């Protein structure tokens, strides 16, 4: 109990030091910030709905990029995660696969988008590939850990039928992990819709490009329309993934 209190006190102290260093306790500065927030909000209202067709098209492109990138990354992550499963492959193979996944994951999605803009040029293809690459790194790690957690008794029993490693993946790892696989995939899709909103800032297509223009030209009422549209899409994604979970997740008995 006393240790918990001590740890909490130390954490709060550290937070205070960091925030003070960044100017969080500078009253005049924060007051100025609040005043600016009021000005910005007043300049954003009412939203300019005249840009809906343009923003809607750009947002549709963002949704397409997220969808394609997530599925592409998902498909590529499966073989990498299988290779990274330590109870299936030797430490050399699984270690190499996990290293590749970690290296991919180290690079943030925005940087991946820049790399693909350089490689394949401006536009949604770069964004899609950037999202796909980040998704591979993330899902490969999650799925490899998931496969490793499969009940060893099930693995032993199916191996004793003469099943190969591919059989094990198809008939044990995938069905046993189906719930978690789908949950993580839906989470990644939701995350990618949000993340891909800013990829247009670096020329990788989608709504980000439109947002950047409105920010640079100080057209905050138009920006407000874009932000509201993104909010609608994110809420729709939440609803869709909730429905999919209910519809497709298996309620396995314990």
């Amino acid at each position, binding site marked *: 109990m006393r240790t918990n209190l001590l740890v909490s006190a130390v954490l709060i102290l550290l937070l205070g030091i960091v925030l003070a260093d960044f100017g969080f306790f500078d009253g005049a500065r924060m007051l100025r910030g609040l005043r600016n927030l009021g000005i910005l909000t007043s300049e954003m209202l009412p939203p300019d709905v005249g840009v809906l067709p343009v923003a809607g098209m750009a947002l549709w492109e963002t949704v397409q990029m997220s969808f394609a990138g997530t599925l592409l990354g998902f498909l590529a992550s499966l073989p990498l995660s299988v290779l990274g499963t330590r109870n299936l492959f030797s430490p050399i193979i699984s270690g190499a696969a996990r290293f590749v996944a970690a290296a991919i994951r180290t690079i943030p999605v925005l940087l991946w988008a820049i790399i693909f803009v350089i490689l394949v040029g401006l536009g949604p293809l770069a964004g899609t590939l950037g999202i796909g690459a980040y998704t591979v790194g993330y899902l490969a790690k999650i799925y490899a850990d998931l496969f490793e957690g499969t009940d060893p*008794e099930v693995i032993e*029993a199916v191996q004793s*039928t003469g099943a190969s490693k591919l*059989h094990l993946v198809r*008939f044990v790892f995938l*069905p046993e992990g189906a719930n978690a696989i789908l949950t993580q995939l839906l989470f990644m899709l939701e995350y990618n819709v949000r993340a891909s909103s800013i990829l247009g800032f670096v020329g990788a297509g989608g709504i980000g490009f439109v947002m950047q223009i409105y920010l640079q030209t100080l057209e905050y009422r138009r920006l407000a329309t874009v932000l509201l549209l993104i909010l609608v899409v994110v809420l729709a994604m939440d609803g869709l993934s909730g429905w999919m979970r209910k519809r497709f997740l298996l309620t396995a008995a314990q």
Partner: protein
Amino acid sequence: MSGIDSNDIALRADDISFAYHDEAWVLKDVSLALPRGKLTMLMGPSGSGKTTLLKVLAGIIKPQHGHVAVLNHAIERQNQKKLSSLIGYIPQQLGLVRNLTAMENVLMGALGRCGHGKTLLGFFPRQEIEQARAALDLMGIGHKGSEMVFRMSGGERQRVAIARTLVQHPQVVLADEFVSDLDLELASEILERMRRAAAQEKITFLMSMHRVGLRDFGDHILTLNNGQVALGSTNSLRSQSSSESSS
């Protein structure tokens, strides 16, 4: 059991010794022989090493000393596919894939004979499907083939596990305490079906068991105590039973 003709022995283990990570011996110089086409009960108290012995016999873990042979085939020299045609293994928790149907689980018994092509897409040869159906029928759950395993009762799952092993066509089936969680009536029914399967398919069964009340289903009884196997007798088991109940 030493009087059995060597041609009638399905599985022979000689001088098996096993310890986990240099700890005390779980099995010490264990030798046994299983008569062909019979149901042998491996009795012994919890923690006596029954699961370890079955895993060694199934080739899942390798002993520090000793050899196991099925129909004179040394198991350490067999690849996984060949081994699967010799030995079937049913773990204590059955090792079923809960998110697949009973039929899909039973068909997994045929994986050692199937290639990768269509099988990976979920398509099995017609004769394998017929065999799986027959195995489910033999277990009395032919009408439950399309039911997901996680929706099935404990007794139905036991039958699915046996059916999967029957489809595998092994010479010897090693089953680990797999009726322990069932009530006596259901456990008796499943053991009776196993006896029938043993006779019909000419399969040798070795079943570990700590419930003395079910020993009579075995044609033969082995007891495992302090890491060593001995021929069991009704009297010794009765005294074991009474000592367990008094403790």
